[in-house]
């Protein structure tokens, strides 16, 4: 997968976000087996310890689980993935609405603009 890590924020948090994003986008499908920590770390050009930390965090949240003998897997709990999808959509919307507010738009205006833009994009 495509990794995009910058150095401004903690690397393990960025790894968590990007793995979550790839679960949402379907790059990793429910019950898929994850590559090894070492391979993932090499792919993302990060330290294996940092990748390990990110995976441990994802395990704690239930998005991935590990099988002692055969590695790590993406959860098969579709509700959990759906929930995650909803959460990240909400984050995007909040971010967007705040930015529109900074540009000086009222909520009503924002809503009409969205509807219009969607129509235009559909054409």
């Amino acid at each position, binding site marked *: 997968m495509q990794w995009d890590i910058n*150095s*401004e*924020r*903690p690397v393990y*948090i960025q790894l968590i976000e990007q793995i979550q994003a790839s679960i949402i986008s379907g790059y990793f499908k429910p019950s898929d087996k994850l590559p090894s920590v070492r391979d993932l770390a090499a792919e993302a*050009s*990060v*330290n*294996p310890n940092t990748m390990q930390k990110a995976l441990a965090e994802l395990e704690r949240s239930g998005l991935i689980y590990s099988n002692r003998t055969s590695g790590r897997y993406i959860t098969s709990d579709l509700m959990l993935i759906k929930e995650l999808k909803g959460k990240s959509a909400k984050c995007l919307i909040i971010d967007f609405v705040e930015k529109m507010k900074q540009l000086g738009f009222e909520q009503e205006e924002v809503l009409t603009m969205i509807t219009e833009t969607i129509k235009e994009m559909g054409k």
Partner: protein
Amino acid sequence: MNSILQCESLSKKFSGSAALSNINFTIERGRIIGLLGPNGSGKTTLLKIINGLLVPDTGKVQISGMEPGIETKKIVSYLPERTYLADWMKVSDTIDFFKDFYGDFDAKIADDMLKRLKIDPNKKLKTLSKGTKEKVQLILVMSRRAELYCLDEPIGGVDPASRDYIVNTIITNYNENAAVLISTHLIAEIENILDEVIILKDGTVILHSSVDDIRTKEGKSIDSLFREVFKC
């Protein structure tokens, strides 16, 4: 015991002026540590002491419980700031040389890396460019299955594409029993593979911390922090 390297109140003076004063730190196995600091802050002196090339005035170094000496040279792979290989040697000679010298040298790793970096093993060192010579030296050092790697400015003279490959080699060679100590000015290039940094200033440790902790606390990269702390 999980630490590979311990430095206890190390001090070293050169003709009256202090190069290192009261250095204390411990490095755990399985970690990749950046040794950072401006020119003349003591990075190379520290690495030389760890490798037994200099003797500290006071304090002591313990590598896997031993003082620097013959036994520690077996488990420490050191890339010095300057090359020491004879110019008349072919690249393949240097590999044989390392094979003879170090029991933990794995010629297969070296051959793979030479191929990847497109270095002809039949060429004499004399005929190689400065950057290529540096690559050869680094390949030799990284091809040992050591417990502690001490790399003094490993990627300084190396082109950006090869740097990426070398940085990747450090990660893929990673083994949880070994630690890597890298001194460098190219912080941005390596900071994403580091666990911790040790920052030296005028011969003392001013910061020893996990890199992600620094990013959380300071909200910036190690590179930006360094530029801010040492602004001229």
